[in-house]
């Protein structure tokens, strides 16, 4: 990949980002162990004692959702930490270094994207597996669909990166890239509550706007619900969040490449 993957790993190690991931993982592991060793009293007079493992089983494995949130958090962390990648690459004096090489601009951007996906993807999977192993030993639950959980989180990483890459190329600033990702994140929360909003505000125009936005913007919230379902082996009825979000990311990447190819540096 023309050295971009290796460079992304070098950059990741150089920024000591890895420690941040380590800290988050240690906290997660510690929390799992503490919760896992807790005893809970049940029954009318508190005469029955349960351990965390039994409760988890009775409640239908909520630990899976906790674990899924942990992996999603690693994804968000990655998005924030890498939001500056493109703007920093394209500052005056450095853009020239990349653009003067015998590679197309499209290849530069896609290789960089791939580099981040590999470098941070590996980190997410490693931290995730440490968390999963802890969960397995503490709660003795094995999740058959754990591979889907990682896969869908990597897809979600790609979706968020398409947004920060777009903002990085179009607006050229790290803070704008973070703000853009934040706005999309906020919008998809609003969209999750679209049925509620439609019920409260009776406006045809608003309803149409919400529906259109729901299909245009990525729905990472719905996507994470889908992820948990898929991981726990439940049947997924509606794949729309995956398709629309992935479609959004691919189209946004194409738009980003078109803009990048037309720009003067």
């Amino acid at each position, binding site marked *: 990949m023309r*050295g971009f993957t290796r*460079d992304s790993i070098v*950059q990741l190690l150089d*920024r000591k980002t890895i420690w941040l991931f380590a800290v988050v993982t240690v906290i997660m592991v510690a929390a799992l162990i503490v919760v896992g060793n807790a005893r809970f009293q049940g029954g009318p007079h508190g005469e029955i004692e349960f351990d965390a493992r039994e409760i988890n089983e009775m409640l239908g494995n909520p630990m899976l959702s906790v674990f899924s949130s942990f992996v999603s958090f690693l994804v968000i962390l990655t998005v924030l930490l890498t939001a500056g990648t493109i703007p920093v690459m394209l500052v005056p*004096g450095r853009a020239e*270094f990349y*653009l*003067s090489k*015998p590679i197309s601009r499209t290849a530069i951007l896609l290789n960089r994207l791939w580099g981040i996906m590999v470098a941070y993807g590996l980190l997410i999977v490693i931290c995730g597996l440490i968390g999963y192993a802890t969960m397995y030993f503490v709660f003795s639950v094995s999740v058959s669909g754990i591979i889907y959980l990682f896969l869908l989180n990597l897809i979600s990483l790609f979706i968020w990166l398409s947004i920060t890459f777009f903002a990085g190329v179009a607006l050229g600033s790290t803070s704008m890239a973070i703000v853009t990702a934040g706005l999309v994140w906020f919008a998809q929360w609003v969209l999750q509550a679209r049925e509620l909003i439609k019920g409260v505000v009776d406006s045809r125009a608003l309803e149409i706007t919400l529906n259109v936005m729901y299909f245009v913007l990525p729905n990472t919230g719905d996507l994470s619900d889908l992820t948990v379902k898929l991981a726990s082996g439940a049947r997924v009825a509606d794949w729309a969040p995956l398709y629309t979000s992935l479609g959004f990311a691919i189209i946004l990447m194409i738009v980003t490449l078109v803009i990048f190819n037309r720009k*003067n540096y």
Partner: protein
Amino acid sequence: MNVVVTEDLTKIYNAGMKKGGITALDGLSLAIGQPEIFGLLGPNGAGKTTLLKVLLGITRISAGSATIVGLPPDNPASRRKVGYLPENHRFPPHLSGLGLLEFTGRLYGLRRNVIDSRAGSLLDMVDMDKWANTKITKYSKGMQQRIGLAQAMMSDPEILFLDEPTDGVDPVGKTEIRKVLQKIRDEGKSILLNSHLLSEVESVADRVGILSRGKLIKTGSVDELTSRESQFEIEAEFGNKLFEIPAEVGKKISLSMNRLIVELKDEKQVNWIIDHLRLKKINIRAVKPIKISLEQSFIETVTEREVDQS
């Protein structure tokens, strides 16, 4: 074959804007052969950096055409045999000197063993092997320029684009960089050297172009640009003998301390002067064409043009 050819190359920044944009290059035609060091001189804002960026496809052409090794800049393959040291460069800060060379090699698609051997010999050439594993951000300006030169040489280029390579470097560093440029020239590479520092260009360039407001207004060898047309200085033992020059030959500019300065209609008329000096039994010690510094030539060319325009 010419490595770089431009024809009526024009670049207008922000052409879509209401004010009409900034014309940075204005119908520039240029050919650089191999091997030669072509010095592009011009005041700040003349368009030197823009020319390099346009040739490398970093900035898009507005009109006209350009080719490098026969390929247009929008073809990435045109950059395969080109090296570039940007002005005010900021290489990726997480890299060491060696790391920069290795990453550069990979960006050029070179194989591992080629990268290793080339990085080694280039570090040696620019005298940076001791600092190979130190981060670039810790380098002095002179060291940064040297590692920048090594980086530009990674592709074993046929042509090297150097944008103000000695800018901001102290005199010792400048001498070191000049030494490296000589070595590169000795290897038979072509160099397009941008500078607003005339002395820099004068000392290394085979051919010089003067760029002003996006137009190439003069090109020629350093000799051609600096020799004052048909002016000669003649040292001879005039004593108190008179020496007149007829108008059809030229005119006397000054005569003092046995030193005669003449401007001739034609260079060959210098023979007439010598003949007549000998006829008058005046002893000749030296006859030499008058040269002006490149700086003077440059200033004259640029100001002449500005007077023309106003």
